[in-house]
Structure formats: C-alpha cells, structure tokens
C-alpha cells in the first residue's frame, strides 16, 4: 500500500485515541453520578446520554454542524480561541465522536459502578478514606472490567463511525478522511481493491475487539493486585 492509503488509518487511530481518552475523563464523573443518584434529573440525563444510540447519525451530524459552525456561539468561540474552525477539522471530529460514542462509554461504567455498590465505599470511609480517595482506591479498581469494556467499545465505535463524521468533517484527505469515509470514496470511484483492503481491516478489527470484550466479561473479575 502506498502512503496515501495509510493516512486514513493513521488519522482514524488518532481520532479514536483522543476521543476515548477525553471521553473516559468526562464519562467517569457522569457515570458515577448516574449510578448513585435517585433524582428525576438522573433519568433525563440517562435518556440524553443514550440518544446517539437511536438517532440517525445524520440528525446528530446536522445539529452538530449547526452548533459548531463559526457562525454559532460555540464555533465562534473556538475560532477566537484557536484560529481554526470546528467544522471540517480534526477538533470538530473529536467533539462529534465524543458525543456519538458517549453511550458506549457511560453505560458500561455506570453498570460497573452500580455493581460495586455502596458497601465497599462505606467500608473505605470508615477506614479513613475521603470520598475521592475511596473512588480511586476502591471504586475504580473494582470497576476495572467496566473500564476495559468502556474503553474498547468506545474506541471501536469511534473507529466505525461514518455518518456524523461525514456531516461534520466532510471528506478532506489527511484532515478528516477516516477509514470509513475513505472506503466510501474508493467505492464511489470504483477502486474496489482499496475498498476491499480497508473494509477487511475494519471487519477484522471490530471482530477482534468484540471477542476481547466478551471473553473478558465471561472471565472472573479483573484483579489489580
């Protein structure tokens, strides 16, 4: 393969990595709150979080395109801050991917935190651990399997996205052309050989990732020490 075909792969990996790292940071407190809250707001936030599961990517992409455009407040702020546009750029893709993959990260974390329950945290508190200390020393290690599932699913789902990326990022080689869009373009231009290559790559990757998740979830809980 020439360098041209490698670029979308490299770009996809970058996008998925940045997205999952940022998502874990944001989804952890969100999932923690959802697992513990009894308020009505919880149900609403849960529903909003799950929206990307049911919405057509074009709907999500359309709204994002409007929100992120340099004419809208968020987009304007970003341009003022960085000099670059959020639409048709890598940063815009990251924002879009984060929203799109949010449920795949929040939900495994939320069920992992629910499974941990209050018991171990109460024990940690009576042993002198502050809530933050107890979260890092007890809750998150006990939820390790949830983190693994969330990371793998969030990463894989970002790799596999198409509609939102096309709407927000367009098809700019080296800037916003990820694998799925590269495949679309190869098919459009009747370059089936390249389309085969990239498609087989995504198929193999997705299968391997799901195998990993299901294998780990069948095994005993993850142990840290």
């Amino acid at each position: 393969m020439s360098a041209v075909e490698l670029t979308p792969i490299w770009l996809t990996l970058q996008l998925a990595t940045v997205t999952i790292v940022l998502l874990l940071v944001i989804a952890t407190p969100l999932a923690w709150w959802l697992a513990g809250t009894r308020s009505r707001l919880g149900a609403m936030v849960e529903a909003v979080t799950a929206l990307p599961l049911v919405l057509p990517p074009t709907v999500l992409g359309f709204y994002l395109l409007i929100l992120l455009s340099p004419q809208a407040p968020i987009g304007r702020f970003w341009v003022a801050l960085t000099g670059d546009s959020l639409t048709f750029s890598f940063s815009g893709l990251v924002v879009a991917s984060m929203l799109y993959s949010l449920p795949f990260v929040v939900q495994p974390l939320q069920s992992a935190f629910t499974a941990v329950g209050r018991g171990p945290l109460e024990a940690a508190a009576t042993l002198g651990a502050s809530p933050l200390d107890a979260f890092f020393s007890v809750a998150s290690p006990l939820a390790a399997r949830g983190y693994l599932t969330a990371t793998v699913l969030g990463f894989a789902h970002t790799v596999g996205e198409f509609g939102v990326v096309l709407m927000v990022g367009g098809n700019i080689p080296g800037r916003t052309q990820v694998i799925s869009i590269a495949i679309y373009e190869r098919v459009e231009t009747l370059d089936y050989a390249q389309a085969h290559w990239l498609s087989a790559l995504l198929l193999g990757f997705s299968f391997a990732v799901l195998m990993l998740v299901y294998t780990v979830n069948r095994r005993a809980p993850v142990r840290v020490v």
Partner: protein
Amino acid sequence: MARLKMDIELALGEFRLAVTQSLELEGSTALFGPSGSGKTSLLRVIAGLETQARGRMVSGQDTWQDSKTGAWVPPHRRELGMVFQDARLFTHLSVTGNLRYADRRARSTEIDIGFSEVVAAMDLSPLLDRKVDGLSGGERQRVAIGRTLLRRPRLLLMDEPLAALDRQRKAELIPYIEALPARFGIPILYVTHALEEVGRLADRMLVMSEGRVLTTGRTAEVMESLDLLPLTGQFEAGVLLEGRVLGQDPTYALTSVEVAGQTLVVPALDLPDGSAVRLRVRARDVALAKEKPHGLSIRNILSARVLDVAAQPDTAFAEVLLDLDGVHLRARITRASVAELGLKPGDALYALVKSIAVDRSLLSVET
C-alpha cells in the same frame, strides 16, 4: 472518661429511630434487640453513614453532628472503625493489601497498635498472601477486624460480625473478639440479636426495640431485671449470675463456683480460685421442687424463694422469678406445675439447674 452523647432521629420509610443516650466509652457495650429494632441503623448513624439522620452526636470533645449548627464530620474523619456483618473486604486487594489500606490511612498517633501486633492477635500470618475471595467466613471476619484495628480507631463499631457464620465458625471467632478490649483498649459497640454473645462479650448492654432504647445498664443487671422474653424468643431467655471460683475437683473435671453464698458445680474451668466468672442460666433449664430432691442426676440444687409468678396467657408456660439472697434466677415451667405446686410469692423451694453456660471471666473488671 470519654462519653458518646447522642440525641438523634432517623426516618427510613415507615421505620423511625429516636435515641437519646450518653454511652460510656469503655470496655464493650452490646446493642441488643430483635431484627428491625434499629441497632444497625443506630450504629450507622454513629459512624456517619446515615446522612439523613438529624440531631446531635458528640464524642468526647468532638461534635460529630449537630443539625442546629449544621456541623457534620464525615465518616472518614470520625476516627472510628466499623466491622460489617458481611466483612466488606476489598476483593481487588490481597489480605495484606486490605490491612495496609487501613494502616496507611490511620491518623491517630495516640493509639499505638502495630501491624505485626494485629497480625498476631488475629492469627493472620497464614492468610497474608491469600486472595480475599478464597477465605472462609470466619477468616474474612478476622481480616476485617484486623483491618479495622489498623485504622487505630478510638471507637470500634461491630455490626453482628458473627451473624453470617455457622455455629462452629462462631465458636472459633468469639475468643478473638473477647480478647479485643483487654488487648487493644479500644471501646467497642457491638450489635447483636444473640443473647449468648451479649453475655459473653459485653460489660454493658443497651436493649433496643422498635427504634427506641428500652433500657441500659450492666449486662448482668439488665439480664436479670428485664423480661427479655419477647425480644429473645423463649428458648434463650435467662439470667446471668456472677460468681467466684471456689475450687477444682480434678477427679471429675469439675469446678465449684460460689454464687450468693451457695455452691454450683460446672465443667472444669481453667481459672485460679477466687476468679470472677459469669454463669448464664436459661429459664428453660431451671426446674423447681418444694422439697430437696434425692436420687437425681442434677447436681446443682439451690435453695430459693419465689418473688413472682408470671403465667404466659395462651401458652402452657409460666415464668417464675426466684430470689437467691439478692441474686435472681428465672424458671420456665408449665402453668399446670404452678397450680400443682401451688406456687405463690414468698414460697421457699429448690431450684434445680440442668445446664449452665459459663461466660467470660471478669478477672480485670470491677463489679
């Protein structure tokens, strides 16, 4: 001496807990009562785990909670330790990891408890490298108690630590808990619904029912003064007698114990003469006779006087309260027997004691 003063309320659905108490923080105190009486909730309020609780809680000089001023000390700053019924060990850590978890976070410099001291006291050295998942119920509780001690608490809360264990494991674990006050000098609040454990482990007790404290006092006094029958079930009701070892009979492996000027024999106790012991006599193990009987296998026959006869309506039974020179004994006999013997207050008779349980020695406790 430090005291734990509380005036607290907690509503949990239909259930309401309301306790105003000043507890002496010394030795071990049992919170006793039937399931659902609020013992565990009270312990959780003391620990600061029930954030809905209203009122005031003061430990020594420290105000842990005061709803009027909004004062609130979170659980991790209350310098207490709690042993839960289900142990709550951290499954992602080894036994050593669990112990070190508490050890690293302990703040108190006044309470001098060493890691190896705890490991020795709880016999943990064979377990140190084990995973938590592989431990038996009794081992889990030993680790949990050891972990809590390494927190160096000023107050140790224990929430039915034996309840999840079978009989044999209970018997194995009790001596460890029994030794805690003398060995580590930390006051203990011990929740249980088993009278057996109260008698063996607690100097003082606090009896709870339906979210309220019914009575408090020294264990022996509470046990003999209060009709615990409705709380314990008829099988376990009885009294605690305090006595002193008189001498040993090595031929038959018996020890004689003096109680209120009379002598009882019990299976050999490995204690020097003069040692104080507690004997628990269940009401169902006491029979009554108008005349001193002969030709019986029962060795413990005490002369007593009837104080009160309480027939239990709708049952075959009556409870007879007996006086032995200031010490009380309870007998549970049939109402038919009461009628046949014509028992009434003031009658002199003989109490035949079929079985005696010996509770912990009181060697160091002033009575």
